[in-house]
């Protein structure tokens, strides 16, 4: 049995990371629909189902932000983790953050413009902003990583 080199392990982990960062934002958008259909008229106190939904959304957001910020590969050694966060990855991350910044600014602008016409609860606004802040950089990062892999 041959042992995989750190480079091969990092490449596999990189593909897994890309799949995760691609699928999770999709889940985020599906979640968004479910959230606004059930939470459109907020009632206090929140029902258990809403608390679980909000908690899971927050947890997934934190995991994705952590994955994006650190490069992942947490169960691997230092060498593999360093490869997963190499120079090109860091450059892609910086570009992804910039895309996230602009998406967030545009989203905040749209919410500000819509404020006199649409009544939104603080929770809903936070939900929208958090989703954009997580999903846009994640998708941009995956796009750049996939393009970098092509010959």
């Amino acid at each position: 049995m041959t042992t995989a080199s750190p480079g091969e392990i990092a490449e596999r982990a990189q593909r897994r990371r890309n799949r995760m960062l691609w699928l999770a934002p999709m889940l985020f958008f599906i979640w968004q629909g479910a959230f606004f259909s059930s939470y459109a008229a907020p009632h206090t106190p929140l029902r258990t189902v809403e608390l679980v939904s909000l908690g899971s959304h927050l947890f997934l957001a934190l995991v994705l932000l952590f994955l994006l910020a650190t490069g992942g590969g947490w169960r691997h050694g230092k060498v593999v983790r360093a490869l997963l966060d190499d120079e090109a990855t860091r450059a892609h991350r910086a570009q992804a953050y910039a895309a996230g910044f602009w998406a967030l600014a545009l989203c905040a602008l749209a919410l500000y413009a819509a404020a006199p016409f649409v009544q939104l609860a603080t929770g809903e606004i936070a939900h929208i902003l958090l989703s954009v802040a997580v999903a846009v950089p994640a998708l941009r990062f995956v796009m750049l990583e996939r393009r970098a892999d092509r010959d």
Partner: protein
Amino acid sequence: MTDAPLLSSLKTLRTQAGLTQADLAERVGVTRKTINTVENGVFIPSTVLALKLARALSTTVEGLFQLPD
């Protein structure tokens, strides 16, 4: 990220040395993806990485990368 055009002889020199992208990546401590992006001109490497690449291919940084005239 391409800020200014940079001509790269990395692919030619790497193949001349009989190395794959993965081999070179391992020698300089990056992933194959990074070598690929440098070869394609998508990513301009840092000075440190350029020096490591030059050393791994027994050449100089100027031998690897040139500015267009």
